[in-house]
């Protein structure tokens, strides 16, 4: 706790009043000096009793680089406070506000870079109502925010399939046989096998696409992890959209093959957190994404393309679906 500039000024005026009054005897100076001194003391008391304010943050939702989010801080306490939420690199915004407590502070941030970012702690400077004494504290309230890598739009599913999927295998053969259950379509009965047994056996077809999986492996040289993540994300999201199951291998983690919304979230999470490096599994890859100083390349079987050639636009096909 220390006096503000204004507080120091008040003390100086009070001191001058006392000195002049002692010298010349103007009685009303007592009505100046006394209240001024008391004001500073009362201010100190007010700040002391206000104590440390409590802060609750409503963390912003996940998103992609370039997106804007709003962060809400609920600050409880008393006095006039100057509240600053410490922002990490990778998240931009002006976060300092002055308010009279209790208050709800809202400020906007923009996601700059992918990755796991930590908001906070919150610096609070509490001043008394008259602005004479101030005390600074730091409230240890932190929240983690995950920013996904950028995702671009691939050149359409057909193009994708054409350029990136391995050569199609014969899909005429059915997958397996199983026992007949009332309600199965009679067309599926495998008469040949059923003849040998008492009950009917039906063919269980695999969905043409539903079995198709894609192994995406991403590697990058030091300092190019962001581009690698963006390219791998674009490929993976595009694959999911076309109905393929995606398995992802990154230098810092991998995700087993899977489908669906939860799977998508897992893929994006892994790509958000991974750094640069190698995986040791580039041989298993259906699609290999590599990033280095010369740029990002996508390799399928023996064909290699610059990633730029495969993207049709820089729009994020997931924009608006995630965390808005």
């Amino acid at each position, binding site marked *: 706790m220390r006096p503000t500039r*204004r507080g120091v000024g008040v003390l100086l005026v009070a001191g001058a*009043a*006392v000195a*002049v*009054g*002692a*010298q*010349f*005897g*103007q*009685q*009303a*100076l*007592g*009505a*100046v*000096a*006394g*209240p*001024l*001194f*008391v*004001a500073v*003391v*009362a*201010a100190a*008391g*007010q700040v002391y*009793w206000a104590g440390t304010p409590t802060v609750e943050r409503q963390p912003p939702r996940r998103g992609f680089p370039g997106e804007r989010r*709003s962060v809400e801080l609920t600050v409880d306490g*008393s*006095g*006039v406070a100057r509240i600053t939420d410490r922002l990490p690199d990778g998240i931009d915004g002006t976060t300092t506000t*002055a*308010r*009279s*407590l*209790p*208050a*709800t502070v*809202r400020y*906007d941030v923009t996601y700059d870079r992918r990755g796991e970012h930590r908001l906070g702690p919150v610096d609070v400077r509490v001043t*008394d*109502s*008259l*602005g004479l004494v101030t005390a600074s504290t730091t409230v240890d309230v932190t929240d983690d925010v995950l920013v996904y890598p950028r995702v671009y739009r691939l050149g359409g599913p057909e193009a994708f399939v054409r350029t990136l999927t391995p050569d199609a295998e014969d899909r005429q053969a059915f997958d397996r046989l199983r026992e007949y259950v009332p309600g199965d379509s009679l067309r599926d009965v495998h008469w040949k096998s059923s003849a040998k047994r008492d009950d009917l056996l039906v063919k269980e077809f695999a969905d043409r696409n539903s079995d198709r999986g894609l192994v995406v492996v991403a590697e990058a040289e030091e300092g190019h992890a962001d581009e690698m993540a963006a390219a791998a994300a674009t490929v993976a999201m595009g694959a999911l959209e076309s109905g393929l199951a995606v398995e992802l291998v990154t230098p810092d983690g991998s995700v087993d093959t899977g489908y669906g919304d939860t799977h998508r979230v897992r893929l994006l999470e892994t790509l958000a957190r991974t750094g640069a490096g190698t995986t040791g599994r580039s041989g298993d890859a259906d699609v290999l994404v590599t990033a280095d100083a010369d740029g990002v390349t996508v390799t399928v079987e023996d064909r290699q393309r610059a990633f730029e050639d495969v993207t049709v636009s820089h729009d994020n096909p997931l924009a608006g679906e995630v965390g808005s």
Partner: protein
Amino acid sequence: MSVLARVRGRLPWGETRLLALLSVALVLGAPLRTMYHLIDVVGSPTVFLVVTVVSLAAAAVLARVLRPILAIAVGAVLFGAGLVWYVTNLSTDPAVSALLRDTLALLSGRRLLQIANVRLWVISFAPAPVFLTTYFALRRWYVTATLAAGTALGFFVLTTDAGVVTTLLGVVGAFATIGFGTLDTLDDGERRTAERNAAGPGTSTDDEGIDSGRRGVLEQLAAIIVLPAILSRLPSVAGTSLSFADEEQPTVEGSIVDADESMTVQGDITLSPTVRYTVESEEARYWRVAAYDRYTGDGWVRTGNDSPYDGTRLAGPPGDSRTVRQSFEAESDIGTVPAAWKPVRYNGDPAVELTTHEGFQPVGDVAAGDSYQVVSEVPVATPRQLREAGTEYPDVVTRRYLQLPESTPDRVGETTATLTQNAQNPYETALVVERWLQNNREYSLEVERPERNVADRFLHAMDRGYCVYFATTMVTMLRTQGVPARMAVGYTPGEQVDENRWVVRGLDSHAWVEAFFPGHGWVQFDPTPSDPREAAEQARIEEARGDGVESVDTGETGNGSEFTQTETPTPPPLTEDNETTTTETPEPTNTTNETTTPFGGPQGDSGGEGSSGLTVPDLPSREETALGLVALLGTAAGLRRAGVTERVSRAIWLRHQRRTDPETDVERAFQRAMYVLQDEHRPREAGETVRTYLDAVDADADVRHLATLRERLRYGGTVSEVAADEAVEIADSVVSNR
């Protein structure tokens, strides 16, 4: 919507801004009030009011269009113009060094009232602070506004023209401006950002925070009102420049004779028995110390500057006079050199200056043992000569000695005119007034100091007082009739110990009247009834002797122990009623209705109001009321923050339930029981249902039953009188069993 809410809705300003602007009014009002008082003393305040209003209006208009830097320039121009106007319009043509010296004297405590042309001064220097304060307040630059008003107030504090209460109000106003102003700026900034982000979901202005902030300001204001007042009374603080409470009862001597260039009429007063001088003189005279010419309504100011005395013989009074030689020896440390009027030559240990009233004033202090000799020429006009003196007063006399404050009630003049209607010349007027006061007012050292005009109150509402009251009233009355008069202070002759020796004590200090007669100069009158006064003085001497006070006697009169009352020059007390004076209940006023004038004037009283004998405690002044209100609000805010009010109201709410309708009753009963449970165990958590909570705290069957009744009401929509009765009963028993 209530009326208040509707009115609030119409105003373009928020509550906080209103509070801030009110505070600005307060901090600006303090110096304005002082200036008004200054002007009122010397003449009509109309011009001053016009100038103030114009400055206010100009600031209000320009606040919208003018940029702050330009506004400061305008303020500087106003100040400079005022300065030029003042200097060029002075009747004398003082040198720059003299002006600077005067300004420094003002800043070290010389009252502005002593300046001859104080009216011009105020009008010249009023516009700048008024304009700047108003402009910046409207522009929300509250600190700057406070500085502008505060500087003006500070100046008046230094010249001691601003009283303690006025100053306190100004200081409170200054802090309130800063406090509410800060909140207003925050509120305003918040509103702007909310408007910009209008797309944001439900961005409501944080009323709770601003509310809490306002209360915080009130708390601090209460602290700065209450604490210094309490601290001022502490023995270690009282008497230092931090305190502003009244000290012990002043003595007559202290309030009159030792007073410097200004004096304020006091309330209760005591007599000091200490011996001051031993005089050897050819005859007994009133030993005059000084005179005062400017009446402020609650006191006197001596205008003009002292001039050096080079030891030569001064002019005597016009007209006949005789010489009286006096030799004085000081018996204690003192600050004056009394002498009979009119002194013409001085010679002695202490160096002296000449006052504007042609008396002598020592440059430093007079030590015990110092002696000096004075030659005086005493006017010896006969009554007939005085009657025929005429009314051709010189300008220099009428300019100075007919002044009365503009706020003097008209009835003073009317009453005096009635009393003196049979007087045919100024001398008779003076005699009538002198005698009327002697016969119709009693002598007492205990008086309730009046709030307003002393002369008006003494004449119409009071029935007793001491010499200052008598003298003040007579001078005022004479002035209303066009007779130039002034108040003189000094000592009565004292105790005669030898043919030509007198011993003068502090209790001999006295105030009387001098009236001007063309061709004869200043002639002395004494409206105080002398017998009661002398009786009181003698009683005091006996009392001091009985107490064994040494200084009451010299070798020639008696012996006693030294008893020093350290009298530092009493600082001019409050111009308003002192909030810290213990107010006594005034005695019932019973005016004696005998009015005898030597010229067969009309019977009947002069308008003394007979009050019924009820003792009504003195109402606090407006200012005190305002301060008390703020202190009260602030204390309430502080209590609220400490949770005291909530706890008290919660305790009341808990104990007693007033029955209204079944729905409210059941719900209220339930809440009461829940409060008890919360107190005994723990509060119900946010996501916890009532049933789960009751299980968790293992509640009694009757509480559960109450909960069921309430559940049925809240979720089933049914309730009955019976259920309500049951519910309240259970709640009462739960509360009483805790």
